[in-house]
């Protein structure tokens, strides 16, 4: 019995929770207990997985005992387990936040009985996508999380949400169809959809065909990750959803796309064939995204644009194909999931306390609620990359890798990255000046709740219910936990960077991934890092050593 065989539980536990919460749909208290318990268990399990692959190397689990490349395989390596831990911590915090909001508001804004099962299915889909070692299973993971996200996006069925939902669903379905077409073509060309097997067989293809398959996958994932020319759907659809939903979407969904791009680039199509177009896309994503953010007056929309913009940093790190660049990108993904989610959660609190998320309507929050000011200020500075926060460290890593690479395009990206960082600071400083620092009477259309006497500041009227607590302790507490996690990423940046660099090394090297899946005798096509020693994978499951050669 290996600890690795528990990996599927990261997907199974949330699905089990979804089933239970469906059964308990009339008992909201039991639903809350079940979903929070199961998600905590999942997080615990994923921490154990991370600990076991930290030194032990990559672990592969064959589902149902079918040997790869025929059966479905789940692969836990350092990158995927790090992503699992970060994503589960974030989704647990958002779940607590959402339950707090539901308990304070009742079911008016978001029918919570549907929320819990859907949310757990979303988490299961995300875990499945992170773990999958099979291209079609990755597609299924994407579909699980997307279908759950369709429901969450249109929760309550109000006019604006339905309008945003239509855009979101159509764009997502088109990207999924593109992904499926790419899978079909890859299967037609190589006869396999196992990613480790593909890593060997794609190398034998004609370069033209390879580039076609490569571009198709990148376009499909680029839509999901919101990389520049394919990012216009995101700021249109995210801001209308309920605050916790937007927060978890912003944190997780685009990052699953980024994760898939990383896997495509490192495992399936290594080398630097498309690095130049990727770098240009990264530059445009950063600059165009942040310019969009400057034009917004709604905080949620502004944050959606910064989300798009900062995807550019990750693509930049990835496109450098160096250990330093990819390591920094991995660190940046972990940092950005935490920070972007906490900013959206704080915006939800601003909306409750100030009555609106529009900068024309809120003002003077620093005086009304200093704690809220602190909760916004820390992640905002973190996002803008002010030292000593993790955003600064991640960007510094990217810049160093860019300068190390030394090509003119890399320098252009370094300059673009600094510029984007400054413009991000400008964008969040505008929010700070308008929503927190100026007097409520200076706002263009101040919300009545801001002008109320200080005495009744703790409660207000929401959706026709009087005396609703404006800042419930659970919501503030979970937001604070996430902000602290972001600060924790700064404090423990050393070890995390070490994991990130090591996982980057492993991903570029590919040996441990391919050998963990296909057995120790699998040949690894030579590419990438000439100086890296292939590490013996001690984790290839003893019960299922798949003696599989490439000769076929």
């Amino acid at each position: 019995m290996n600890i690795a065989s528990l990996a599927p539980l990261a997907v199974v536990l949330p699905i089990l929770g979804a089933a239970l919460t469906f059964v308990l749909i009339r008992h909201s208290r039991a639903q809350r207990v079940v979903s929070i318990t199961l998600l905590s268990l999942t997080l615990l399990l994923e921490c154990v997985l991370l600990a076991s692959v930290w030194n032990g190397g990559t672990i592969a689990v064959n589902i149902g005992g079918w040997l790869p490349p025929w059966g479905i395989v789940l692969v836990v390596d350092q990158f995927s387990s790090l992503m699992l831990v970060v994503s589960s911590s974030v989704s647990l915090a958002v779940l607590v936040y959402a339950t707090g909001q539901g308990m304070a508001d009742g079911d008016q804004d978001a029918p919570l009985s549907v929320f819990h099962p859907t949310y757990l299915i979303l988490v299961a889909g995300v875990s499945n996508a992170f773990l999958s070692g099979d291209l079609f299973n990755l597609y299924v993971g994407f579909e699980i999380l997307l279908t759950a996200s369709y429901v969450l996006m249109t929760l309550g069925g109000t006019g604006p949400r339905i309008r945003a939902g239509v855009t979101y669903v159509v764009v997502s379905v088109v990207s999924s169809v593109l992904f499926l077409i790419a899978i079909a073509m890859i299967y037609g060309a190589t006869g396999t959809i196992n990613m480790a097997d593909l890593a060997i067989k794609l190398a034998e293809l004609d370069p033209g065909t390879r580039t076609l398959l490569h571009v198709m996958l990148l376009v499909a994932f680029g839509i999901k990750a919101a990389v520049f020319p394919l990012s216009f759907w995101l700021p249109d659809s995210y801001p209308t959803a309920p605050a916790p939903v937007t927060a978890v979407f912003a944190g997780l969904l685009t990052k699953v796309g980024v994760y898939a791009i990383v896997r495509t680039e490192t495992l399936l199509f290594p080398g630097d064939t498309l690095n130049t177009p990727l770098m240009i896309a990264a530059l445009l994503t950063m600059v165009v995204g942040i310019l969009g953010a400057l034009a917004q007056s709604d905080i949620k929309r502004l944050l959606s644009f910064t989300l798009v913009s900062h995807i550019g940093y990750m693509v930049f790190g990835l496109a450098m194909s160096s250990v330093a660049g990819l390591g920094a990108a991995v660190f940046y993904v972990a940092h950005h999931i935490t920070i972007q989610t906490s900013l959206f959660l704080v915006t939800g609190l601003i909306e409750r306390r100030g009555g609106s998320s529009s900068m024309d309507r809120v003002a003077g929050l620093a005086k009304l609620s200093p704690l809220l000011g602190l909760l916004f200020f820390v992640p905002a500075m973190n996002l803008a990359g002010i030292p000593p926060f993790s955003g600064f460290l991640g960007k510094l890593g990217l810049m160093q890798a860019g300068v190390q690479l030394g090509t003119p395009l890399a320098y252009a990206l370094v300059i673009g990255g600094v510029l984007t960082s400054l413009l991000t600071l400008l964008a969040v400083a505008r929010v700070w000046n308008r929503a927190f620092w100026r007097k409520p009477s200076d706002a263009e259309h101040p919300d009545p709740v801001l002008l109320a006497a200080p005495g009744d500041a703790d409660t207000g009227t929401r959706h026709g219910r009087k005396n609703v607590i404006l800042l419930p302790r659970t919501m503030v507490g979970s937001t604070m936990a996430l902000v602290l996690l972001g600060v924790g990423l700064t404090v423990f940046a050393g070890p995390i960077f070490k994991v990130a660099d090591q996982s980057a090394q492993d991903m570029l090297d590919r040996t441990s991934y391919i050998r963990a899946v296909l057995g120790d005798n699998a040949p690894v096509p030579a590419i990438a890092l000439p100086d890296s020693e292939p590490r013996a994978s001690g984790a290839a499951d003893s019960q299922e050593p798949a003696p599989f050669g490439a000769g076929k």
Partner: protein
Amino acid sequence: MRVNLTLLTVMGALYACGIYLILERSLTRVLLGLMLLANATNLLILATGGYAGLAPIFSKETAPGDYNDPLPQALILTSIVISFAVTAFMLGIIYRTWVLAREDEIQDDVEDRRVADTPSYDAEDDAEIPVETSEFPLTMLGTDGRAVSNRPPGDETGSGDPHPDDTVRAGSAVLTVEDAAAEEKPGSTNIEPGPEGGRK
């Protein structure tokens, strides 16, 4: 690998119709387009399995090449189920749009429109700050001699070069705009004002 030409032709036609339909503004047509795209993709996956062969049930007499490849069919089954779920959800959304708005069209984003209509002028950030170096409360002048005070931002009647006949009042004296502007600038001839108030 042999490929069925009929399958490919049908697939191409389905893709063409599907792409045409999702470009429409009517939601029902978009849904039909998505369904066609999904089915075209299913045909594509089927085509990757090669020409139809025997059912993949093992028997010793059959040569390995005679079997059909079962994996594409398993993939198609999965993708059919997924597209079924998405279609059902889209139908729900379309019905909801109909209930809410009584129309089957994709709506514009209000916030998008609002941001697009925002004038480039921002009252807080872009307000022109008049240069005031005179200790007398003259009508405030910009550095180029344009009077900028007491004028709403959208009002452009006074913009452009000042007409030489425009005048401003300075105490009891009446100055032409150009002279008044010259006085406001550093190094002006205003150092030793004449009796008429610094006329050159």
